[in-house]
Each structure stands twice: as structure tokens, then as C-alpha cells.
């Protein structure tokens, strides 16, 4: 550790003169310092990707509804959406519960990418999800996730305490990386915990722990101790900051429950400016084998309303140009409904990309409902084209490196 860095770290941790810190200090601290001194400028390196996983296989046909197609109505005697859909054009409309999506679409902030899939589709939840997470239909044993690969290779230099955050208890394979990605279920979980005896005892212990970290970071008795001291110091500050923001945090909109609360947490962390590049959250289960109508409607309402609230909140904080959201599911469902008023595992389905920098609209061909393979839709768009577009045009990365192949970009960014 250089002398200047050591001194700066001490200053930073004591909370004084933060504004004067230079770039030699840990990125998190300098970002924090900078955030207090002046608004951050818009550079592409600040772009943030939020992935929403629709777990269980979302029924694409009842999400982006081909309402003008007779085959659709014949195939879906019980489940076809007959009215109240939000018309997008003469052929297609959004499910009635997707009011939130319609608003984003009308504002030009929602791209719908039709017919996403891959060759030889897999209908096992588990294996199909692995394929989407790995970004690799071959499912090789190198099961680092596509985002994990991005973290390992492109974010290796980043010293941020929170390069990527998964909201939830378990880390998805997509984020599986050599650098462990934190899973944050709640703000409460991301905190320095204490056995609470009384407040003065808690304060004493907190101070001791902080002092020990600072001493290790500053003294640098060994590189490992310095590294650990620095990580712990950063984490404690990050946790305290997150806690402070939650306590005093007022979202600029009302978020619905479920996914809405996950996105609210993500908005909080984005607003706190920790330098986090990736967020991941999940909604489910979309595995609607029986009595699909109410179930699917509830999920889509949760999805649409939560996403709309999220973008509205970001816009109010003037962060809407920094954030892009991608929604996907491991597969769509079969064209013909089953005998339980539900649908079974199918293949191609739409993906959704939203955000202030997204060029809204319809992309790629809607799959034919007559030209089927084993009763399933043939995909028109390899899902990795969406990944490649986001990697190259949004995350300033090299998609060929991450996906081990070149995929044609789609014009939604």
C-alpha cells in the first residue's frame, strides 16, 4: 500500500475531508466521496444492467398475444385472451394485466424481442435454465454463468465492494463467478450484526471492529491482512450506508409487494452509487400447468406494475438513463393448452428490454403458430443475440469473449 493511499484511507474512514480524496484509494470510497461532492457525469462505464428472471417458463403466447390469429384462439379454447388486451399493432397485444408494460411501450422505453430461443430446445426447467444462465446451449462443464464470466473478465480491476448484487437467498448460475457475488435478501441481512445487550455495548464493539479493520488496512503487516482490512472496512461502510439510506429512504413512487420490493432495494442501491454494474432478481413460479388464467394474470400484474414503478422511481431520481432491464424465462409454453386449463413446457418466447436508453418497439419475427416443431414454436431469434447486444452496446464488453461466439446485435439500444 502506498503512503498516500494509506493516509487517504485513514482520512476516508474518519469521515473528514472526504472531498479531497484522489483516485489512489479503493474505488468504493472514492465513488462515495465523489458522490458527496458533485453529481456524477454520465459515462458509459456507469451503465447498469438489471436482470429479471421469470422462473418456471412464462407463457409467451399469453404475454404478447397474437389476438388476430385464429390458430391461437383454436389452440387456446379455455385460455385465449379474447379482449382487454393492450393493442400494440393489428396482430399483437399485451396481456390485460401488463398495463405497466403498455405504458413503458407507449413511452418508447420497452423493446419486445419476439421468438427468443435456441436450436434443439430443452424442456427440462433445470437444464433449460442452465442453458440460459451459461449462455451456452451445449451446457459444457465450464458452468460459469454468462454474467459471471463478464464479472471475472471485465470487472476484474474494479475494486467496488458490490460489483454485482443478486437479490434473493441463492445465487443464480448466471452470476456464478470466481469472485463471489453477494446475495442480498434484505437490507437487514447486509449488515454488521451484534449481540445486542445495550446500545453503549454495541457501540463499543462496533468501534473495536472498525478500528481493527482500519489498523490492518493501514499498517499492512502483510498484503493479505491489508486486503482483508480494506474489504472489511469497505463492507462496513457500505452496510452502514445502505442502512442509513433505508432508514431515511423515500422511494419516489409506491412499489407493489413481491418483485416490487426487490426492485425497490435495487433502486436504493443504485441511488446510493456504489458502482454496482449488475443486479439480478427473480419472479415465479410461471410453471402454469393447471388453472393458468388467474395465476398468470397475478404474476404478470406483479411484473408489469413493479417494473413500471421501478422506472418511474429511477426517472424521478434522474437515473433512468443509467439503467437497462432485461426480462427472460427459461422457455415458453406449448401452443395448445392442456386438459387442466394450463399449458405444458414449450420453447420460444419473447424477451423484454426496458429503460431510458432503450429504443422501444417490436423486434424480430413473431413465431408462426402453424409452422411448428413437435407442437412447439420454432424460435426466430437466438437469445444470445440479446445477450450480445447488451454486453457490447450497454456494458461496454466483448460478447465474443463472454459467449465464445459472435452473435448479431439487435437494434434495441
Amino acid at each position, binding site marked *: 500500500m502506498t503512503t498516500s493511499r494509506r493516509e487517504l484511507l485513514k482520512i476516508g474512514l474518519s469521515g473528514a475531508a472526504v472531498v479531497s480524496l484522489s483516485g489512489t484509494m479503493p474505488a468504493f470510497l472514492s465513488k462515495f466521496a465523489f458522490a458527496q461532492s458533485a453529481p456524477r457525469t454520465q459515462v458509459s462505464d456507469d451503465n447498469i444492467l438489471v436482470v429479471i428472471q421469470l422462473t418456471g417458463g412464462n407463457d409467451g403466447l399469453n404475454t404478447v398475444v397474437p389476438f388476430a390469429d385464429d390458430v391461437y384462439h383454436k389452440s387456446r379454447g379455455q385460455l385465449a385472451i379474447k379482449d382487454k388486451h393492450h393493442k400494440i399493432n393489428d396482430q399483437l397485444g399485451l396481456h390485460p394485466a401488463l398495463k405497466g408494460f403498455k405504458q413503458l411501450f407507449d413511452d418508447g422505453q420497452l423493446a419486445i424481442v419476439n421468438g427468443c430461443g435456441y436450436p434443439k430446445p430443452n424442456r427440462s426447467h*433445470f437444464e433449460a435454465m*442452465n442453458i440460459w444462465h451459461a449462455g451456452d446451449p451445449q*451446457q*459444457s*462443464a*465450464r*458452468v*460459469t454463468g454468462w454474467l*459471471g464470466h463478464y464479472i471475472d473478465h471485465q470487472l476484474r480491476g474494479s475494486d467496488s*465492494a*458490490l*460489483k454485482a448484487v443478486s437479490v434473493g*437467498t*441463492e445465487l443464480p*448460475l448466471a452470476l*456464478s*463467478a*470466481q*469472485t*463471489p*457475488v*453477494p*446475495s*442480498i435478501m434484505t437490507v437487514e441481512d*447486509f*449488515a*454488521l*450484526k*451484534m*449481540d445486542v*445487550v*445495550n446500545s*453503549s*455495548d454495541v457501540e*463499543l*464493539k462496533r468501534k*473495536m*471492529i472498525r*478500528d*481493527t*479493520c482500519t*489498523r*490492518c488496512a493501514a499498517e499492512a*503487516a*502483510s*498484503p*493479505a*491482512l491489508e*486486503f*482483508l*482490512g480494506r*474489504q*472489511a472496512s*469497505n*463492507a*462496513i461502510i*457500505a*452496510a452502514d450506508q445502505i442502512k442509513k439510506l433505508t432508514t431515511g429512504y423515500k422511494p419516489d413512487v409506491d412499489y407493489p409487494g413481491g418483485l416490487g420490493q426487490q426492485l425497490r432495494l435495487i433502486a436504493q442501491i443504485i441511488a446510493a452509487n456504489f458502482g454496482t454494474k449488475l443486479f439480478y432478481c427473480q419472479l415465479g413460479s410461471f410453471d402454469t400447468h393447471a388453472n393458468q388464467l388467474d395465476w398468470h394474470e397475478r404474476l404478470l400484474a406483479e411484473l408489469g406494475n413493479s417494473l413500471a414503478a421501478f422506472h418511474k422511481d429511477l426517472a424521478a431520481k434522474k437515473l433512468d438513463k443509467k439503467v437497462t432491464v432485461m426480462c427472460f424465462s427459461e422457455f415458453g409454453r406449448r401452443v395448445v393448452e392442456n386438459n387442466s386449463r394450463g399449458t405444458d413446457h414449450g420453447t420460444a418466447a419473447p424477451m423484454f428490454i426496458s429503460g431510458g436508453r432503450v429504443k422501444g418497439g417490436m423486434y424480430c419475427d413473431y413465431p408462426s403458430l402453424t409452422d411448428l416443431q413437435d407442437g412447439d414454436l420454432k424460435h426466430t431469434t437466438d437469445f444470445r443475440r440479446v445477450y450480445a447486444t447488451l454486453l457490447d452496446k450497454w456494458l461496454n464488453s466483448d460478447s465474443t469473449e463472454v459467449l465464445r461466439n459472435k452473435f448479431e446485435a439487435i437494434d434495441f439500444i
Partner: protein
Amino acid sequence: MVKNDVMPVSASPSEPFATFVPSESEPWGVSRVGHLYRRAGLGASFDELQRGLKLTPQQAVDQLLDYDPDTDRMDELQEQLVGYLKFDEPRQLQNWWLFRLLNTDRPLQERIALVWHNHFATSASKVTQLQLMADQIALFRRMGSGSFRDLLLAVSRDPAMLRWLDGATNRKGAANENWSRELLELFTLGAGHFTEYDVKEVARAFTGWRVENSRVWFDAGGFDDGDKTIFGTTAKWESESAIDLILRQPSAAKHIARRLLREFVHPGPTDEMIDHYAQRLLEHQWQIKPLLREIFASRMFFSDWAYRSRIKSPVDVTVAASRQIGGKITANFVREQTTKMGQSLFFPPNVKGWDGHEAWINANTILLRYNFGVAISTQRGEAFARQVDLEQWLLKHDMRSGEQIVDHFLTLMLDGSAPAELRTALLTYINRGPKGEARPFVLEKDGFNFKLRAIIHLICATPEYQLS
């Protein structure tokens, strides 16, 4: 990969390969005993530390190493639990291994199984028949300290591995190179020591192995019995002769020596060390146990250079703390904690295994490690099947003053070699009354004492405690 800016690579010890002999300047004290039990075991309890101090280094190493892999109390227990112990879900399998780690009386055997689990990193994310995963770890326990050549041959025919790297679909005319590539790149030689052509030809030598109903069999009809050219030598290579050929490559012994030195000694062993132990490995005809005995007996192993040079894995942190402090922590709680901290047993991130060291640490995982200190020190709730009666133990051993208690836990958890500032801070904390006034601490009665419990928490929540 280990980044040099995090771990020291200089200041390696003098005469590293000579046998360590205790002296006045390099005593056989708590630091070295604790170091041995952390690296070659799973952390020492107070009694184990005391016993270790009375042994010679050689005796202590022998006690850890000389177990008979064919008889195991834990295996007997597992047999008794047939019908109760089900591996329907990954968590059950993970809990069983963690239970063994928490309770075994032969920690080095489990440590070696962990090393090979990381080396031949196979994941239940693809091998969904969990019994096969359990069997693979049992293979590591049974053969992990024997001949690496025999271990490698067994792994090449292990059903979990055949599924994991698609060996089971590798057949004549339709070779699958997944196993062959990782065999060369990760398991034996390292990148740069073979060609793409070698990968293709080695794949052909391993054709014909099948897995059916969890049983492995050799399908002679699927085997490619033609000539193959591997490393420039043409012959009718098959799996066993190919393995012997691969292990004759100069980089093979170095690759394995480097792996063992990294896991047991230091994240960045020098070339001189790798070359020395690679040579010794060959002289021992690939036997792992005699090589480990030499490593553990060496000046290198007991040097300041090796001491606290590695960052503990999540399993190290949780299992060692439990073995040190006592009490009955549940395997399920350890599973939840280690998973959150980034080490979900049976689910390595990919075939390369866990990078370890500084890759274990990020903002969330360091907080989880610190917070684990609260759990292990207070032992409240369902995470603990039985709580440790620390107060009674301390009273029985006549440890009552703040100084005695702080020094006891610093000895147990940090080998008594903690920075003076830490000891002073702990003493200041314990000898302070509710209003912040100075009040010498005296443990007077049995029952939960929050001050002394906090000492354990505060030691867990130090950078030093994260190091092995």
C-alpha cells in the same frame, strides 16, 4: 489465480526442505501446533492444542497422517443410518459431509477429500444422481492419500465424472473431448503442455466407458481400438496406458506438487519448491501420503512465510470455529452459512473449482464471516443442537479475570500471536463497566456472560482470524 499484490511471494524460508527442528528462536509452540492443525486438519480444540504441544512435530504429523482409509467410524455410522440418511436433495448430501467435517476424528482425511473435490471439481448441478456425487467423495476419502496414478485412473471411471465431463457419451467415431481436455489442462499437465491434437487423441483412448443405472461398464464395441498419436508417440493407447503416458510428462508431477503446496502450504509456492516436491513425488512413485509427510515436516511448512498466508475457506471458518469453541452447531446451519459465503459443497462454480484465497472475500462474505462470530459465540436458536457451557469450563479451569479470559481465547483462536493492539482493545472492552467506567472483569458464576461471549465474537471479527 493468485494475485501477487495480495499474497506475499518473497521472503521464503532458508533451507526450506530440511526437517523442521524446534529451537529457541523457532519453538514448537502454540503457533506452530495451531498452524499444523489448521492446515493438515480442521482446527484444534483446546485439548488438541495441549496434546499437540506435548508431542514432537514428527509425532503430531504422524498422528494426523496415519489413519487407515479402509476403516472409518463415520462410514460405520453412515451404514447404521441406512434408511434414515437419504440423498433426495442436495442439501441432505451437503449436510452429511458437513456433519462429518464437524465430527470426524481424522480431519486430514476430510481435508484431502476437500482438496480433490476442488481439483476434480464435479458439480451436482449436472450430476443430478446425488448418490454418485456421494460416491465420488467416498472415493477421495479412500484413495486420496494413496497413489495419485491409481486415484486418477479411478476418477476416469467414476460414474459422476463420466457424467460431469460427458465421458459416458464418448464413443468410437463420435468422440467427446470434454473429459480429455480437462484431464490434460486441469487434472494433470496444465495449459500449454499439450496440443489440440493431443486432446483429440486422448479422447479416443477413453472411448467406450458407459454409465447405466449408476453402474459403470466398458462397452468394447464403443471403444476406438485404432492407433492414436499422443505427445508424438503412436500406439494403441487405451485409458490406463494413456494415464501412464500422461503422468510421464515432465509437467505432470509439477502440476500436482503445485496443487498440494497451494492447498497445504502457501498460495504462491516458488518454482524451487514445486520442482523439489515434484521430484519427490516421482521418487515416491506418486504416493501422496509420504509426500505430505515430508511437506508437513519441513522448515518451509513451519516458516513465517507459510504462517497465516492463506485466506480460510468458508468451510475452514465455520468448521474450525465450531471445533475450537465447542457446542453442537447443526450441519444445516453450517451449510446455509458456507453457501452464503461462497462455498456450496458439491457445487463448485465450474470444473476449475474454487479459486479460493482472496476470491472468497467480498463485501457480503466478509460481513457474513464477522456475523458468524455472533452466532458461534452466543449459540442461540435452532442453529445449535447443544450449547457450549463456556462459563462452567472457564470456572473449572480457574480462568476468571479479564486478562485470563482474553488470553485464553487469543491462544485458542489466534495461537496467542495477535497484535498487541488487539489484546489491549479486548482487555479495555472486558474491563469496562456499563457506564464506560473502568471495572476489572471477574467471572464469578455459571451462566451466559455477554462480555466473555463478546470476546469470541470480536476475535472472529478480525482480519487475522480470516487467515489460515
